[in-house]
């Protein structure tokens, strides 16, 4: 049942404020989700990810662009095509759950089938199947108001899948839950969606959620889709400084590109030291570059071989129990490095050898 989703040149312009200013909430976003694939749109609030999702749902009307699902055109404002949400056969899970408080669990889940005029026997079977899937079968006749947040969200999930929609849309479904529950439901969610084989578009601002849930992640900022790739690619080859920073590469070393050797290059940093870094598109020799570096990628002593070995001073030690974060004085910059494990090996004031393999030093145009 699940279908492919094509979003093509999607653009949504809002006019706000006095005097009215036009602002593109979604700016020429294009992507495709294969049938059965889970794509997560990730970005800070206001980046346009929810607006994109609501355009797919038909709840929001884009200014221009096209949305096709399973080969059928659903949204094409230029051609006057705008299929209302009820005719799109999509499932949606809302941030606020949006389970109807005046109905029982069963009534909530049966609602979409009733709206479709499904015969009673078939309806009851489908409802119980959906409730089984989310492990709420024994709660079927409870009023939803008596459920916990996590259970309500599972009701919402069952309701959105019970009619086998073409695509499942999830709008920050876990952000109202407490931390522990969020972790558990996060893993369940992927399993359930995969078991049913649904195509899913998932929106979140939480990187770990995106990594765990998504087959591919699309990072958005200011209405633009910056990079759409597998989690591995996003975390190891971020397309630009923002994607690198947003996914956790919080260290930035400024320098100047001395030579370009193809994929890698030499960068002059700090007190005339040289560092080999992987070059992103657009960096030029003799121009300023910024090198992004993940704290957890810094190799700490003993480092005996490979390029990019430097001496660093430990300026501060922040012991966090299961890991330790060090503040390093390195290459004339302050660099954070992380050591996993409950024993902190280095004390403040020590000088140690660190290694920054070129593969993890990403140079972007400064």
């Amino acid at each position, binding site marked *: 049942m699940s279908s492919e989703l094509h979003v093509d040149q999607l653009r949504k312009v809002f006019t706000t404020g006095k005097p009215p200013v036009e602002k593109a909430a979604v700016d020429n976003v294009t992507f495709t989700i294969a049938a059965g694939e889970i794509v997560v749109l990730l970005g800070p609030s206001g980046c346009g990810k929810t607006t994109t999702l609501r355009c797919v*749902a038909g*709840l929001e009307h884009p200014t221009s662009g096209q949305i096709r699902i399973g080969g059928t055109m659903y949204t094409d404002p230029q051609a006057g095509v705008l299929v*209302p*949400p*009820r*005719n*799109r*056969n*999509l*499932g*949606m899970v*809302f*941030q*606020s*759950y*949006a*389970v*109807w*408080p*005046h109905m029982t669990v069963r009534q909530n889940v049966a*609602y*979409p089938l009733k*709206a*479709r005029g499904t015969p009673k026997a078939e309806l009851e079977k489908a409802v119980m199947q959906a409730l089984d899937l989310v492990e709420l079968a024994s709660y079927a006749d409870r009023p939803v*108001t008596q459920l916990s*947040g996590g259970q*309500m969200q599972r009701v*919402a999930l069952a*309701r*959105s899948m019970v*009619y086998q929609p073409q695509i499942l849309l999830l709008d*920050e479904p876990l*952000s*109202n839950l407490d931390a522990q529950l969020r972790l558990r439901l996060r893993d369940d969610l992927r399993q359930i969606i995969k078991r049913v084989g649904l195509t899913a578009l998932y929106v979140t601002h939480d990187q770990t959620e995106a990594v765990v849930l998504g087959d591919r992640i699309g990072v958005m900022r200011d209405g633009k889709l910056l990079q759409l790739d597998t989690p591995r690619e996003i975390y190891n080859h971020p397309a630009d400084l923002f994607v690198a920073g947003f996914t956790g590469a919080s260290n930035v070393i400024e320098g100047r590109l001395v030579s370009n050797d193809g994929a890698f290059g030499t960068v002059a940093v700090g007190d005339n030291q040289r560092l080999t870094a992987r070059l992103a598109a657009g960096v030029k020799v003799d121009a300023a570059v910024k090198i992004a570096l993940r704290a957890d990628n810094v190799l700490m002593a003993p480092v005996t071989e490979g390029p990019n070995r430097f001496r660093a001073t430990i300026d501060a030690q922040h012991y966090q129990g299961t890991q330790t974060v060090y503040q390093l004085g390195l290459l004339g910059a302050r660099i954070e490095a992380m050591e996993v494990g409950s024993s902190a090996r280095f004390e403040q004031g020590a000088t140690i050898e660190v290694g920054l393999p070129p593969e993890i030093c990403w140079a972007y145009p400064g």
Partner: protein
Amino acid sequence: MNAQASSHAIGAMKTTARQERAWMPWTWSGMLLIVLAFLVLYPTAMLLIGALTTTNPVVEGYKLSDLSIGNFLTVAANQNVAYALMNSMIACGGGTVVALVIGLSFAWVVVRTNTPCKGLIASAGMLPLFVPPLVAGVAWAILGSPKTGLINLVLAKLGIDFRFDLYSMSGMIFVFGIYYAPYVYMFTAAALRNMDPSLEEAAEISGASAARTMATVTFPLILPAIISSMLLSFVVMLGIYGIPAVLGAPANIPVLTTYIFALTAWSPPLYNTAAAVAVILMMVTGLMVYAQQKVLTGRSFTTVAGKAFRPRSLNLGPWRFLTLGLAIVYLLVVVVLPSIALIIAAFRKFLFIRDIPAIFDMKQYGWQHFIKMFDNPLTVQSMINSMKVGLITAVVGGILSFAIGYTITRSQAPARRTIDMITTIPVAIPGLVIGVAYLWAWIGLPGGLYGTFWILALAFVARFLPDTVKALSTSLMQIHRELEEAAWICGRSLFGTITSVVLPLARPGVVAAMTLLFILSIRELGSSLFLYSSGTMVMAVQLLGYYEGGNIGITAAFSLVQMVLLAVLISFTNYLSRGAAQGSVGRSG
């Protein structure tokens, strides 16, 4: 008050060295209970006794010897009582339905559509709440009396045979309905506004049509608000005297309120029968209030919402001008027409209007009614009296409400629940019934309160106690407990904490509550009717006197004077409390 006030802190600080003074919280609670018993319980008890006896309290004093449920049943079985009760039910029931239709459509138009100027429509639509019912009645009598009503005169000039007759049951239903529609509007608009829009979006995504979404999701979710607002407006209408007195009396349609007053105006006054009918009115009201509380607490439809949301707004396209038009018609009927009627009647020498151009004949207009009105020393005297009563009510009620509010919300004093409960009792007692109860409580006691300003003021304090205590409790609860605790830690006594921290922070709320009490008491008619004497005539009663004296010009002029006075006071209160007043002014009718 000082010593007692500091005493219930000890209730909160059980482990302090001053534990031996544990009797002090009890003294404080006991004092509040005595005051409440005096204000609320004693008059109510006397009313019940009055309903169960046949002795006249003025002539024979109070006797408990002939107490019998039989006396009450005799009255209850009386045909006239049944007739008045039936009329009350029809008038208030019909009025409630009209109010529901208008209020709900208004709420939908304002919250859910893109009708132009809806902010303006919303605020103008609330204006009827501020109009005293008697003034509303007078205005509509001027507009719609069958022979001389302005609307009927215009219809006659236009050659249309149809005549409106507001002196009728349907007239009462109509005026009730349009003036109490704002209640339904307030409740349902709030419910619609606070509803998470994704609840409806989820229905749409699920495949439901717009109509199905409305019927299965939107409507059931605001149903508690609808029922509760209907019950509330029904209760308020049930206690109104002014509108049925003006519109029902000429057509000989007694309702419970007008019937009770007629009984005490009889010669000799039938105080026992009045008390018995008042008890019936109180029972009906109590039942409705109970039902309303049930509806409100029984089903809690609050749902979790992660982000602030904007209510969904339906694009009506060209139809939005139709909704705008309907809203304008409503405002025209409810605000503009009555105002014009009052102004014409107040400034015109004679209300008879020969033809339509004559309406604009300026020679016909002048200040003569105002001059005549102020020539009557009773007019000014009644205004001064109202101010006096209002002032006493505001001060006494303000202090008492603060003491009760603080005790209920902040202290650990014993019997807090009981105090809270007694405080809420007057919600279920219409003003007019409180008037009868106070009459029964004090008329037979020589040298007592009867005939003084105090009996009016105390009755008003009791009547408005639930509203003011609730308003003050809300503003007290907004003061974070830690602010007080910080002052204690700094070494202040409880009384010092209250005066140096709580009162300054709660001051806007206290001032607003006092101003509100002042406004409510100068417009109160129902309870004043039974409690004024020749020396304590108040404005609202004086206005009724002018109306019943048959002088429409002076009645209209005095109505305008009172409206202007109220408008000034209400804008002042609104300025102090940003709109908190409007709900409460409305609630008390």
